[in-house]
């Protein structure tokens, strides 16, 4: 096999109409390890994923959106990021799927079918922001390990299901209960069928919020397999890893849940801030709870060129974990001055908020539009990457797009 053949991935070759290596101008000059951009774009994505989504990893699947793909008020399923830790179950059957609620602080452990959940409890729908704790990881310096998310591991879909608290109360919650953990039907990458992939959770207080759901529908349709079909938890405003997919067991705990990826450095940041690159011992790492205030500029797509004198209408979303966003500002002069945007209230608690603005540029040139949200506690997004942490969580630095005025 020639060196150049290496760049031709089998799938890429087939669907790009078999570009032969000899047809790539200067192909022989490509350094080892580089893929042709044309072939990179022709990536193999799971069914139902927008072709513009960015593939980070295919075993397990980790796929993120680009900012302009997230312009919808309610994120469509094909533009919703995928963060899998293991391998999703094969052909799960919603008719036979069971959810067991147990644990040392459950009064009367019970098992429900999805039909039981639908008939026994009242159904609710909420639009909830789910953001990966590691969204923005790729900006940390020194680099942090893991999937190198940029800005697109966030989404706000409409979720339908029953309240987690209604189900927990039906089972009975003992007085000593403090934490609620989940287990799912995915399989560990090392193929051991008995090894738990990930089992995280939330304190009982968060689990008892109205918006904490056991959901079977996303945007009024079955949840796609990659997003947890046929049943999942949805915990808005907290790291996405608390929203367990392929949900088949919930445990009511009398101590902090201790499933895989609850401990160590997983989904934790230093309890006290540290200089970049520090080693932090496990006992000095604290669990991430609410995600920080953040925003995205979803229109226009970065790189827009406009004529001088045109007023540019821009828009995006802002969110703040457990809190609401109270102020949205944009800057076109690298943060020297800020313009306040129109900001809508969330449709419901823990949904993101639409913001819009009209911008006039003073003269021709290169501009960056920076977007900064502030939450109800007066906390704003930083302009540079915030506190370094070993696993690269919680980067809520302002989103930036490039504009040229010609």
């Amino acid at each position, binding site marked *: 096999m020639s060196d150049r*053949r*290496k*760049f031709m*991935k*089998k799938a890429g070759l087939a669907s790009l109409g078999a570009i032969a290596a000899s047809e790539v101008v200067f192909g022989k000059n490509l350094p*080892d*390890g580089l*893929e042709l951009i044309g072939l990179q774009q022709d990536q193999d994505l799971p069914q139902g994923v927008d072709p513009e989504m960015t*593939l*980070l*990893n*295919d*075993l*397990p699947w980790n796929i993120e959106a680009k900012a302009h793909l997230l312009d919808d008020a309610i994120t469509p399923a094909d533009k919703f990021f995928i963060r899998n830790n293991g*391998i*999703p*179950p*094969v052909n799960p059957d919603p008719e036979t799927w069971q959810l067991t609620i147990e644990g040392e602080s459950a009064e009367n452990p019970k098992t429900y079918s999805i039909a039981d959940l639908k008939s026994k409890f009242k159904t609710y729908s909420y639009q909830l922001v789910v953001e990966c704790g590691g969204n923005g990881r790729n*900006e940390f*310096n*020194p*680099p942090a*390990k*893991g*999937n*190198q998310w940029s800005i697109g591991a966030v989404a706000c879909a409409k979720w339908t299901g029953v309240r987690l608290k209604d189900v927990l109360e039906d089972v009975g919650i003992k007085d000593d209960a403090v934490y609620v953990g989940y287990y799912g039907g995915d*399989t*560990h*990458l*090392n*193929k*051991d*069928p*008995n*090894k738990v992939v990930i089992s995280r959770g939330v304190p009982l207080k968060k689990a008892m919020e109205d918006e904490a759901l056991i959901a079977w529908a996303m945007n009024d349709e079955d949840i796609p397999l990659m997003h947890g079909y046929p049943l999942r938890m949805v915990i808005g405003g907290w790291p996405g890893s608390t929203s367990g997919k392929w949900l088949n067991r919930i445990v009511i705990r009398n101590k902090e849940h201790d499933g*895989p990826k609850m401990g*160590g450095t997983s989904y934790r940041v230093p309890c006290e801030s540290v200089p970049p690159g520090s080693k932090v011992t496990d006992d000095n790492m604290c669990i991430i709870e609410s995600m920080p205030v953040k925003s995205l500029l979803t229109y*226009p*797509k*970065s*790189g*827009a*060129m*406009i004529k001088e004198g045109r007023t*540019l209408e821009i828009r995006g979303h802002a969110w703040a974990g457990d809190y609401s966003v109270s102020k949205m500002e944009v800057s076109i002069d690298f943060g020297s001055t800020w313009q306040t945007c129109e900001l809508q209230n969330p449709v419901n608690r823990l949904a993101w908020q639409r913001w819009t603005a009209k911008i006039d540029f003073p003269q021709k040139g290169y501009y*960056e539009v920076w977007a900064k949200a502030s939450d109800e506690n007066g906390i704003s997004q930083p*302009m*540079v*990457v915030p506190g370094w942490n070993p696993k690269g969580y919680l980067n809520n*630095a302002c989103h*930036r*797009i*490039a504009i*040229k005025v010609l």
Partner: protein
Amino acid sequence: MRIFTLALLGWIVIGCAIKEKPSPVTEKQIADFKNEARAVLPEGQAKELVVDNCVHCHSYKLVTQNSATREGWQSTIAWMQETQGLWPLGPAEDEILDYLAEHFAPESKGRRVPLTDVEWYELGE
């Protein structure tokens, strides 16, 4: 007796369910992932060791999108051994670490990089 029968039945059903749980990733798929990795990973003495030991569980993309010092890669391997079921690498570990540290070394990015790779386009009205 009835309880015992039910328990036995339950045991058989659960036992079979575990036994028959289909492997979600086939040997063929793993072989494909490994071939893809061979085609993409930079040449080096330990390339085949990386393919065999790393791509057995996860895509090479989890390697190539990361960068770290030798010490950083070592701690990643240790984490996979402690929590993810990675086997002991023996003498291969040193070779793998040399390879990863050489080809996937960190570059200092400062506190915020300029906007790069902007695809310019004319914005319609």
